[in-house]
């Protein structure tokens, strides 16, 4: 009985999983480098004037978002050979993940562009900027700011999704862990090591995305960053200090507090 040995001896199994980690990072990188530009192009196509183009883009996005990544993976690896398309495990995984990543990022890019205030478009119009210039110099810099934090989170999700590739024999972290576990029967230790590897990348990534969001979103008034002193306590302290509790002035004070 080795009840709690896994609490420390997972460290021993980390080296077994490192080759798999490189594979996971490789899959993530290729998926994002191809998937995100594809998603951006699709975001533009979903707003296309030609209804057929628009329709195709929307169907692609709905399928990519609506079908589990695991089913897409099987569809590519075990389904496509029927059409004469025989892909190895790694290219199959990449194709499936790129479909997922592009479909998800499409929605993100689309909503980021939609979040740019209408006045910006009207101002560009008033300045007689061309469609392309409006997009390049006005829309893109602002939409990019909005899209960046979710894009970081999306990349972490893709990194997590690469763990699925093990089911079609791609030698990434979970595959290495399974092999190691089958060899020495220490499944808890091995999978704890895998969890630590994933978390060591995903948690700092998520914190970075959170900080980025706070930094880029500016000073909107939210309950979460409400002032420590409420309006009531401000009124009370103003009264006790003998000053005239002018309501408008007090509200201004409190909104300054919220914005700081």
């Amino acid at each position: 009985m080795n009840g709690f040995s896994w609490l420390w001896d997972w460290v021993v199994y980390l080296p077994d999983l490192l080759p798999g980690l490189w594979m996971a990072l490789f899959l993530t990188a290729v998926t994002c480098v191809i998937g995100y530009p594809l998603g951006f192009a699709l975001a533009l196509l979903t707003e296309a004037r030609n209804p057929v183009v628009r329709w195709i883009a929307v169907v692609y996005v709905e399928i990519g978002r609506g079908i589990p990544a695991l089913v897409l993976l099987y569809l590519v690896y075990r389904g496509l050979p029927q059409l004469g398309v025989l892909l190895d495990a790694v290219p199959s995984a990449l194709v499936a993940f790129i479909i997922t990543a592009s479909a998800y990022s499409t929605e993100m890019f689309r909503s980021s562009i939609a979040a740019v205030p209408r006045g910006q478009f009207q101002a560009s119009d008033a300045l007689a900027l061309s469609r392309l210039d409006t997009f390049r110099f006005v829309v893109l810099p602002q939409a990019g700011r909005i899209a960046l934090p979710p894009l970081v989170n999306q990349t972490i999700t893709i990194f997590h999704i690469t763990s699925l590739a093990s089911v079609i024999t791609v030698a990434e972290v979970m595959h290495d862990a399974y092999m190691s576990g089958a060899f020495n029967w220490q499944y808890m230790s091995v999978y704890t090591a895998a969890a630590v590897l994933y978390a060591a990348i995903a948690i700092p990534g998520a914190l970075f995305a959170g900080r980025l969001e706070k930094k880029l979103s500016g000073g909107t008034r939210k309950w979460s960053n409400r002032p420590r002193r409420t309006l009531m306590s401000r009124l009370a302290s103003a009264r006790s200090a003998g000053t005239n509790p002018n309501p408008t002035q007090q509200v201004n004070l409190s909104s300054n507090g919220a914005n700081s």
Partner: protein
Amino acid sequence: MAGALLAILEAVGLTVLLTVVAGVIGVVLGAPVMLLSRSKSAAVRAVYWTFVHMVRGVPSLVWLFIAFFGITQIGITLSPMASALITLSVIAIASMAEIYRGGLSAIAVGQWEASSALGLGRWPLFKDVLYPQLFRAVSPTVATYLVGLLKESALASTIGVAEVTFVAGQQTQFYGNGLLFFAFAGLIYLVLSLPLGVLSRTIHSRLTRRYAVL
């Protein structure tokens, strides 16, 4: 062939069961867990932070394998279904807690100040001011999350729960018609996610009509 498709269709029951059980547990238990994040004690907030980041920082597949293969090392054996239910439920609790937390922080600070100015106590503040707005704010996010949970239930196939994806794989091994079977499985997920979308839109518009504050 029709028999194979029928077999896949019959597996919808387990897919729905996994999604509904984990979804209900997440929606219900996520709320009290979220309150930990608003605790005055730094230690309690640290517990919340650790729980949420650990659960969400590790891929669901890893948790599933820990709950199925891993725990055999400690001498516990769970059925595939029990492992899948426990894993998906814990993940749903952490995710829903984060959704509720996000919804609460989206409520304008003016609401808080106004309640304070009206002299509302802590409980009426939560019950009459914050919660109605909270549910209105998060209902689309919850629906999106439940669709995600539906798709995540496909992971249970990797440890042998006979839900849609697993049976599609089984039939593919048997008849070799992977394209048809997995496309059919994909279609089932698309169809299953439709009612959730409709439901969320109905609830959202109804709540917006009742509590059109912002």
